Each structure stands twice: as C-alpha cells, then as structure tokens.
C-alpha cells in the first residue's frame, strides 16, 4: 500500500509546528508586552472637564503643589481640592472665562466637578502620600514634571516592580522634606550621598514585605 503522505510531509509537519509554536510564543510575548503597565498606563492622558494647566499654575506662576493638594502631608490621599479652592482666586482672576464655566457652575450648584482619575493603583494596594512626602520622596519621583505638563499624564508605570525598586534602594530618590514640592530641584552634590544622610537621620526603612502595601 502506497504511503498516503510523501516523505516531505514530515518536514512540512515539523516546519508547520515550528511556525505555529513561534506564532504562539510571539502572541504570548506581544500580549505580555502590550498589557504591561509601562505600555498600558504610562502616558495615560485623558481630557479633563476643565482645561486646567498645571504648567501655568505650578510652572509659570510657581504655585506650590500643596496649595491645592493640601492633604498630601496629612493623609493617604493627595486630594483634589474642593471647587472653593479654585474660586479663591478665580472670583477675581478670569472671573468670566468660558473655560472656567464648569468650575463656576460647581461652585454655585454645590455639585462636584467630575475630574478624571489618572494615577490609579489596584484596589488591593494602599499607597499613602503622607508616608512618602514626610520622608522626603518628591512628587516628581512618581508624577514626573507636572509643572511642565499642560495636561497631566501618567509619567511612570506605577507597577509593583517599579515601586519595589525604590523601596529596595531609596537613597537615590530622597531629598530634604522641605524640597519635595520643588520639582526642578537639582542636588548640589551626589544624590546618593544626600539620600544616605537622610536615611540615617530619619531612620528610613521602607517596607518590602507584602503587608507594607497590601491589606
């Protein structure tokens, strides 16, 4: 009885298997790459209901971050300020601006401005701003140069490997606590050395165990 498949079928089968296997691996690789927070989340820049420019407020005019985000040194959340804080100035400044209409509407009706959340951690992670800011981790370490962003975008992946890299080696990212909101600060000497001094002075020992961040 003649063979159903020729000898070359063997090769085709092997090659075919190889192609399918490679395709699968490429698919898995592509999926892993595409779903990585560095690709997925970094650069997220939604359009906000009010075209608020951090570049103008924090950069050009040099307002301190904590003028608006005033709970950052006291609590886990660096809260978005109540509309009232905007109106502190905008009752006088640009009081008739079309762009500020939603802010005025919120102030008058008592309804919130619906800002879109950019920096989002999974629900099982409990990040605390106070703990970081008081220890001398600058806003810029996680949020980038917000003072140069017209519209805020996510600057870092905020995934666990990224968090842990700093928790394992905090020295490079520590500065005197009063300089945390000075986003353009450049250390006058080796940042590692400054960091190590702060670690010694404040006895900084960031947790690398699960319950440090997961509850």
């Amino acid at each position, binding site marked *: 009885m003649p063979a159903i498949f020729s000898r070359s079928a063997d090769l085709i089968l092997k090659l075919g298997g190889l192609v399918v296997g490679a395709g699968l691996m490429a698919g898995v690789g592509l999926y892993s790459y595409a779903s990585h927070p560095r690709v997925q989340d970094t650069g997220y820049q939604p359009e906000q209901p009010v075209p608020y420019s951090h570049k103008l407020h924090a950069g050009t005019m040099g307002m301190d971050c904590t003028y608006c985000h005033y709970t950052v040194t006291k609590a886990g959340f660096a809260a978005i300020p*109540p509309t009232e804080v905007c109106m502190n100035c905008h009752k006088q400044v640009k009081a008739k601006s079309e762009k500020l209409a939603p802010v005025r509407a919120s102030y008058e009706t008592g309804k919130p401005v*619906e800002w*879109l959340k950019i920096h989002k951690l999974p*629900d099982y992670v409990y990040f605390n701003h106070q703990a970081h800011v008081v220890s001398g981790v600058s806003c810029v370490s996680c949020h980038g140069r917000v003072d140069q962003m017209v519209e805020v975008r996510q600057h870092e992946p905020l995934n666990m490997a990224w968090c842990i890299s700093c928790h394992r080696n905090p020295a490079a990212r520590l500065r005197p*606590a009063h300089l945390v909101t000075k986003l353009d600060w450049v250390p006058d000497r080796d940042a590692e050395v400054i960091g190590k001094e702060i670690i010694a002075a404040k006895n900084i020992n960031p947790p690398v165990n699960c319950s440090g961040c997961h509850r």
Partner: protein
Amino acid sequence: MSKLIQINPTQTGPKYWRSLGELYNKPEFRDWVDSEFAGGAAETLDQGSRRNVLKLMAASFGLAGLTACRRPEEKILPHSKGLEGFIPGKPDRYASAYTLSGVASGILVETYDGRPTKIDGNDKHPTSFGASTALTQASILSMYDPDRSKEVLKGGVPSSWKAFTEGSKSVNPGEGLAILSEINNSPSLTAMKQFVMGKYPNARWVEYEPVNYGGAAAGSALAFGAGVDAHPQFDKAKVILSLDYDFLGIDSPTTLVTRQFAQGRRIDEHAETMNRLYIAEGQFSLTGAMADHRLRMKVSEVKSFAMQLGEALGVLPAGLNVLGNTDKKTKFLNALAKDLKANQGAALVVAGPRQPAVVHAIAHLINSSLGAPVVFTKSATGGEDPVAAIKALAADMSSGAVSTLVILGGNPVFTAPADTQFGAALAKVKTSIHLGLELDETAKAASWHVPQAHTLECWGDGSAIDGTVTIQQPMIEPLYGGKSAIELLAMLFGAPSAKGFEIVKNYWMSAFTGDKEAAWRTALHDGVVAGSASAELKPGADAGRVKAAAAAEPKASGSGFEVSFYPSATCYDGRYANNGWMQECPDPMTKIIWGNAALVSPKTARDKGFKDDDMVKINANGGSITIPVMVQPGMADNAVWLNLGYGRRSIGRVGEGVGVNVYPIRTTGGFWFAEGATVEKTGETFSIATTQEYHRMEEPTLPIPTNFKRPIVREATLEEYKKNPKFAEEMVEHPPLNSIYGDWKYDKGFQWGMAIDLNACTGCNACIIACQSENNIPIVGKKEVMRGREMHWIRMDRYYTGTEDDPQAVTQPVNCQQCENAPCENVCPVAATVHSPEGLNDMAYNRCVGTRYCANNCPYKVRRFNFFNWHKNITEVEKMVHNPDVSVRMRGVMEKCTYCTQRISQGKIQLKADARRAGKAVELKDGYITTACQDACPAEAIAFGNILDPESKVAKMKKQERNYAMLAELNVKPRTTYLAKLRNPNPELA
C-alpha cells in the same frame, strides 16, 4: 511522633469534648473528622456541570482578551465647598448612643467620608468604657439593610409622606388615643411624651418590648418601693450566686457587668485570688460555663431554691412552700450558704430577668443581710410592667376603646404575647400608625406605616443603666427618608418644632446651666452628658413585705414538662433577623447558625426518644409550634428551651422563614416559662446547622493511641495553680524543638503578638462581629456553612468536660496564631503567604491561586477560602458598610486573620510621619495600635502589641506563668498565646 511527644500523664486534666457526637464517637462525627476536606468541598454553588464550567471559562477568557486593553475610567468628585477638618479617606469617630431594651450604651462610630463603617464602645462612657457587644456592633449592618422600610404605606399599599401628612390631620387625638412605645429611656422622648399628654390628657402611653426587665423592676419595688434600680458591683464581690441570670451573656444589656466580673476573676501580678461563681439555672448559659459550681434546675424551680437559700441564711422564715431536696442540692445549698455567710460584705446574689418579682426581692433581702456590694439609683425607665401594660392595651383595642394607636418602633404584631391577640386587636383600631425600621408584620397590619430612621441616622438621647445620658447624633442622612420617634410625635401632635435636631438641642439647652453651648458641644464630643448619672440611693429593704410575698407563693409543681423562652444571642427578640452577620454568628453555646431549635437535655431526649434534627410539636400556653430538637448537654431534665426572634414571616431576604417562631406559645401568663407543656415527635426531620464540630485541632488520621488527647484548652483549679503555677506549659513534654530551616531572629523593631486570657473570656462573640465588621468578612449562608465554608477569621471554640448531664464548659477564641515557623508558608507554591520582619504571617490576596494547601497544613484550622465571590451579589447600599482600608477578597482566594494589618500599617505610618516631622525617634505607646477584637472585648481578655516592649500589656501577660502556646510541640512558635483558665471551686463541694 506520638512516641516523642508526651502528654504529661500526671497533668492531662479532664477530657474535653465539643459535642455529644464526639463524646460517644458517633459514626457521623468520625465521618466529619476523618475526611480531608469537608463533604462537597469541590462542589460549585449551582451544581453546574463540568461542561458548563469549561464553557464559562472559555467565555471569560475571551472577554478578558477583549477588555484587557480598556482602562476603566474613574472619576474624582471633590466637594464644591470645603468642609472644616475634613480629609478625604481619613476616618472620623463620633460619639453616640445605641439603645436596646431601654438601656443605652455609649458608642463611637467610625465614619469614612461621611459613611459610617464601624461601631465601637465609647471609652468615656461609664458603662461601655470602650467595649461593645456583638449586637451593638452588628446594628450598623441593619442600617444598610436594603430590605429596610423605604416608603409610607397606607393599608399595606405604597403611599407618600404628603398623603400621610394629609391623612394624619384627620386623626382624632381627643378620646381613644394610645401611644405604644418601646421601653423609653430617652429624656427628650419623655419631654415629648409630656407635651403630648399635656395637650391630650386622656391619651395613654404604653411601653412594651418582648425582652424587658419587668421582673427585676417589680422585685425591687417589692423589696424597696417603686422606682429603684439595683446595680450589683461584680468587681467587689468574692462570692457570687446567680439565680438563672446569664449576666455574662444575653441577659445583660451592658458590657459593664462582664468587665466588672472579669476584674474580679483576673489573676496577675497584682491579684492572687479570684471570685467564686455559683449558678442555679436551667439552660446551659455562658454564665453557667464560667461558673465554678452549677446546679441545674428548671426555671420554675429557681424560686423554690431562692426561698430555701433564704431560709438557710435566716432571712426568710422556715416552712415556705419549697420543693424537696436531692442530696446534691442539699450539699450545694449548705456549702453555698456557708460560703456566702463567710464573705459578709463581698457576697452577692443576683437574679435573672426570667424570674418573678419574689425571686428578685429575696435576692435583695439576702444581699442586704450580707452587706452585698450593690449600688442603688433611681430607675432610668418608667414603672409600669410592660407585659401587663400591653395586655390591658390589647383588651382596650379589641373593645373599641382605642380609636387611634401610634406605634413608635417595635413589632408588636409579631412579639406581643399570644393571648393578647394583638394582630386581631389592631384590626379593630380605626387609625393605627406604625413607625418601623422594617416592612415587618406590624407594618403590613397597620393602617399607616411610616419608615423609621435608624439610630445612626437621627438625633435622640438615651440613658444607661446608671442614668448617664448620651446624646445620639446622626452619622448620615436617613438613607430611606425615615423619621425618629420624637420627630413623628412632633409632626402628629403639632410640637413647636418637628426637626429632631432642634427638639433634642432645645431640650438640652433648657436642661443645661452655665455656658449652655459649651456644655452641649462637650456632651456631643464626649458622648456623655456630664453629671447626668443618677444620684445614689440608700433604700432599706422591707423584709416583712418580702417575707409575706414569699409565704404567699404557691409551691412549684416540680413535675410536668416545662417550656421557657430566651432572647436569642443572635436575633435577640427578632429585630436582628435580617442581619446576616448575626444570623451567621454561632450561638455561644449551641453553635447553631441560621436558625433556632428546641433544646433538651440528653436524659429527656432518651426518655422521649428524640434525637438531633427530629421535628417536635410543642403544646404550651394554649398554643402549639413545630420545631426541630437539639440535644444539649447540661440542660435541666423535663424541660425545653426556646430562642425568641426566629421564624419571621415578613422582614427581608435574609431572615424571612429562617428558624421557627416561638411567640405563638408565649403568653402573658407564661411570658418567660410555663409548666404543663407537651412535646411530641412529628416524625419529620430538619437539618440544624451547627459549627460545634468544625475546625478541630487534632490529627485524626495518624495511628495515635486512644488516650492521646492534645491539651488544646488548659485549665486548673486555683489551688492546683498555686501549687504549680506552670501547670499549663507542663501539660506537654516534648524533645528540644529544632527547625531544619534555622531560626529567624525577631529581635528588632516592632514584633507583634497577642495574648488571650481564657480566665477572662466569657465567649460572648463580640470579637467575632468586631472582626467581621472591621475586615469585610462575607456572609455565606446556611447551606455553605453546613459544608464548612464559613468565613469568620476568629472563631469561638466551646469545649465541654465532665458528664453529659453536668458538664462544665470552656470557651476559647482562635484566630490566626501568626506562627513564626508558619507551616502554611512552606506549602504555598506561589509565595502568596510569607512572613514579615515584624512576625506577621502576611497574606497577599492578589498572588493567591487558591490551591488551599495552606489551609490543609494549618494546625489551628484558621484559614478560610473564598469558594465563591461572596461579594458579587450584594447591593450598592450594602457595599457602604465595607471598611475601605481592607481589600474585598475575590473568589478563589485564601484569607485569614491579619492581626488587623491595616491598623498596624496606618498606625505605623502616622507614628513615623509624626516622628519625622518632629525630628524625633519613633516611639510606640502601648495601646496606640489595637486589633478590632481587642477593642470590642468587654472582659479585656485580649491584649495585642509589641512583645519586645517589656512594659506592654501583651508582654506582661505572656510573662505570666499561666501562659502557654497552643500546639507548641509542633515547633510552629505561635505569636498568639493563651493564659490558662482557672476555676475556684469550693473545697466542700469537691
């Protein structure tokens, strides 16, 4: 292994058992114990076939692929106007009051962003001092109950507030107006009552609750005259006799009693002796479990016992109508009388709410002859007997004398004594207005129903047992637009203001002197109105009157079958029936969940041919019910015990149809107990769910010698302890324990540990509910609990010792022991459970893949697995009760006690931040970080803290000689250790 580890033969102590099944090693018990997994552990909720599961999996993978790239859009909604002092995500605590059966306790309510999430005791309140009961804790879930009453009903049909306002104008308040309130302990409600009664002098005011202290009030009226409350000082007593009074359990409305009792029982470096507790009771209660000597008798026989004791102590004349004695009773009576006499000034006799007035009066008489530590004050609640009051009211309703009835809370159609026929009487009332939290039986029967505001939603006030008033402030706007009792009265009867805040504040502004605004603010802040406690009275007991009453008492028959009623430790009188936390909280003694049963003694069960789960028909008080039987050790013979509050016909999806309603056989004459009942088997059966055999800590599959019984709970008498203080540790001898991994040195920073004093623990369940509330622990339902899938992170084990007729019982709370050599960690394939440098056994939920090896390898059986996504089908409003500081766990994830790791993290962050701002070193004050179970515990049995700090309470407790680690011979080095239990028996009764 069994050859190496020796259970010290001289110190084995008694044999412990958890159920009659275990005592007799019944086959059902062996099946349960010997199986590696509980039956049905692999079954799915809806019995879905394997093919269905695969289909579902394929579909969800597909969806995952499509949705992975989508980032869910989330919004941040800040306030429009800033609120002073408000910081998003930071909890605030407000003082308020919670009232049950006319007794207020001081509470602190934790609120996140205006959303109350947890109730604790108020440490500034004189009867709460920071502790709280399970029922108080669970009331927060009742507020978020999605089945609560949401709208006005007219004749059972949805209507509106507008229609009600219009309709209520036609109410004729002149003749035939009656107001039925719950037991009133509120000064502002009393003021409102006076306003209404002043306007309509012919109106009548009736107070009723199905669980009340009418017998105690009548007893003190008999002994001292009306309006006197007696407050026994348990901490000052050395010998205590309880006459059917479960003061450590459901009979006491406050945590003060437990605290005082535990103080008198504490053995530490300051105290070398402890009180001695005798009890005469029928049901085996928590107080009975704590007792050093217990004499079981029917509830109706306690009166005779009290009279005999009175005779023996010479305060009552001989020749009263008493029952004959058995040898045991004579011996008990003689030893007790001698012990009481020998402790003049520190001997105390207390009687329970089920007992009639004369028993309370005899107790008062004995107490005054013994110089017992009792403080008297003016009564904080009204005088009329609630049972007589509702009987008279129902009669007038039936006769047509009541044309308008306003019911301020409560559910009398369900809870009123059966012979009052309250439901039928209500139908004869022309206009009935029911204010209630739920769409209950009364709401559907009344001509109008209006939704009530929950305690946490409205202004009010309430006085504690000592008269101390707490102002009740709302934590949140009424979720469903309800009104409080004072607001409804103000609206109906035209008070100057109808706003709760104004009524309460105006009342107190007129009551305060000096700087009124400051006094008001201080009272709100502290949760206590300064100086509001009642003044102490020194009433003299009228011995003649009590003697005459005792002489006039007819003799208890002593024969015949008795039925008696108890408030349920879970549903209370029925008001917690729709509360999933309480339904799933095991009864402290029987460990029954999701239901009730008729409890009978083993002898009675044998005589009548009953076994567990048999349905029986009980005829008593002219009615009958059908209920399953559970055989319970330690009960009096020829009697049956029933728990109130189950079998609700109308309340909501949790409680409807759960258990059996026993109110149909409760009458004004047999309100707490009745003789002459008959009990017959119907031939049917019903599965009662009980957790008493769950989570055993012995390895049953090893070929172990039969006498090998690991000492899990350890106890001794005070004498034995004094002879050998280290008895607990010496109960097990083992070779030197070495680990193949090498020991980690936990000698830096904070090292968390816990110590639990079994001598103080009463088994009240407060810790279970506190933990459930703090840690977002789901409710799984009866069917799942019967498969062994309940989720409680801390469980209350209850062991019996001795015979089935007269056992003693011990309770032991068991949570994750946070082993330093944790066996669960070695077997996790994905490192989802690993150790922290502070000695915590961390659980990373998002890493867990659900192999359940850890739970199998846990010697303490404290790990709980999410077989399903228990949080999936809950409503938005129920989600509001969740603690935002704790992850809500998904299906397929293991969980367990974390020592409240969220509190540790938050506490450490705050401490470090404060220290770094101030440029100081971090310093942890003992008590700064606490666990939820520790906060709740009324007995202060649980201590938690840094064990490296020698000044911390936990370190001091661990240093005590009674300290032992459970299963220490396994070398797991648990961080939770126990202080062995001690009993103080009378040598004459040994």
